[in-house]
């Protein structure tokens, strides 16, 4: 028996798609507070304003993140959701979990929360929606002791690092993303659980330039697997693709007949830098002009593979559009080794260089990408001790990358302007 009339929400059940309204009504059979969520959301649809209040001092002892306080601003009408905090749980690397673990999480949340989950939040966390302040500590104890899982990041903390499944299943992974994700999560526990920065900071790790976790679009520090030698070519397999012996794209588009595979049309003509051509039945690649877009490798995975000298490209400063619109990360370091044997020394050095600078220069609530935009890429490159390269230039003459310091110029920049004007009369 519905507790509240929800005519506006009921409209959302009428389409062919799955509906969160239906899910909530089903959940309300065991968790009556779900009726109050429906009631409050219906009121929000009617009033065209949210009735959630964010923020507060809820949390678990010693942690400054992982719990997002949430309160209703109409608690008397909807007492079941008067306090309805969100819990972020650090997801396993590459989102590998067992059904046993998922059952454990669901049972825990049925016991201490509303039973509603959001799998996964945009940072990758397993998001548990709706609990009360007294339930937080027992929930945290069982989560960490019984399920051996930890809370994720929120607030001005390092956010939960996330990665693609990397070398565990993908032949294109240029480094072990899960190992790096696990290492950074452990190394930066303090930054993950306690606020350290002007604003949020996200790591994301993709094994290859396909960038399956969208690191370049969504993270402040993107580690994207890459190679710096030549794409490996199996010419016999190229011939087999041309002949039609192998399906293109690993058979991903096999649902309909696209006609005979045309390497010229489907691969060579689509290369963004035009660095591929055929010499007879031999495929040639000018690797010095290849931008590593992955298109040819995606289309002919049995014929083409990333090079052998593998590592990662570092891009910095992506963000979602809260201020000034969404922003992609900027490529800062074209290639670096990602080496577990030296405890990822190169990666760690770059991260800490950025943090030390941003903690000092960044304004409150300013993402590192916004700080870079404010001070300019040339200044940031100096901070990173990176020599500018042409790829850092967005367009000619608006983003110069050749700089002369005073001590590099004979006589410096000091000059007598009157003497100068005598020779260069206006």
């Amino acid at each position: 028996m519905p507790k509240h009339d929800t005519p506006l929400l009921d409209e959302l059940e009428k389409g062919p798609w799955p509906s969160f309204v239906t899910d909530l009504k089903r959940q309300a059979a065991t968790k009556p507070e779900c009726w109050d969520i429906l009631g409050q959301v219906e009121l929000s649809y009617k009033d065209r304003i949210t009735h959630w209040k964010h923020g507060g001092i809820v949390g678990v002892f010693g942690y400054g993140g992982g719990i997002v306080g949430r309160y209703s601003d109409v608690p008397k009408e909807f007492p079941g959701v008067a306090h309805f905090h969100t819990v972020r749980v650090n997801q396993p690397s590459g989102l590998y979990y067992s059904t046993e673990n998922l059952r454990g999480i669901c049972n825990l949340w049925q016991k201490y929360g509303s039973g509603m989950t959001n799998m996964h939040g945009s940072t990758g966390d397993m998001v548990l929606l709706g609990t009360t302040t007294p339930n937080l500590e027992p929930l945290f104890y069982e989560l960490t002791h019984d399920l051996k899982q930890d809370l994720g990041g929120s607030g001005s903390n390092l956010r939960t690092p996330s990665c693609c499944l990397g070398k565990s299943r993908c032949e294109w992974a240029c480094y072990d993303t899960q190992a790096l994700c696990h290492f950074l999560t452990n190394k930066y526990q303090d930054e993950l659980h306690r606020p350290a920065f002007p604003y949020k900071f996200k790591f994301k790790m993709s094994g290859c330039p396909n960038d399956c976790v969208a690191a370049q679009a969504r993270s402040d520090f993107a580690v994207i697997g890459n190679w710096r030698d030549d794409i490996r070519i199996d010419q016999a397999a190229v011939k087999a693709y041309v002949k039609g012996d192998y399906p293109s794209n690993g058979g991903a588009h096999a649902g309909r007949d696209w006609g005979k595979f045309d390497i010229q049309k489907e691969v060579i003509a689509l290369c963004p830098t035009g660095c591929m051509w055929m010499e007879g039945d031999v495929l040639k690649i000018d690797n010095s002009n290849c931008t590593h877009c992955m298109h040819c490798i995606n289309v002919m995975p049995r014929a083409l593979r990333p090079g052998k000298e593998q590592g990662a490209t570092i891009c910095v400063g992506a963000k979602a559009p809260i201020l000034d619109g969404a922003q992609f990360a900027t490529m800062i370091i074209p290639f670096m080794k990602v080496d577990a044997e030296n405890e990822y020394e190169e990666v760690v050095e770059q991260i800490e260089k950025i943090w030390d600078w941003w903690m000092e220069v960044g304004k409150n609530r300013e993402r590192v990408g916004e700080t870079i935009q404010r001070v300019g890429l040339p200044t940031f490159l100096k901070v990173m001790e990176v020599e500018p390269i042409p790829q850092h230039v967005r367009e000619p003459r608006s983003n110069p990358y050749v700089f002369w310091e005073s001590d590099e110029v004979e006589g410096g920049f000091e000059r007598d302007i009157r003497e100068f004007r005598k020779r260069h009369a206006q």
Partner: protein
Amino acid sequence: MALSKDELKAALLAKATKAPKPQLYIKDFYECDPDAKPREIKNIANEMVREGTLMFWSSGSTTMYALPSRIKNEETREAAEDNK
């Protein structure tokens, strides 16, 4: 760090007590010791949270620091309003 650890803690406490708004960003504490590195200030502030002198206040997207006596939690505030 120009100040000793205890002096810095006292300076942070004074700042949290006198600031016009009860919630402070970590950067607001930097002026307590301009010679200290941001990370040193952050570590002291977090130590004060563990000791109970300061507390975290989170908006969900941003975490701030506050003096416990200057902040009322939502449950306490609602109870006070109900008793009016």
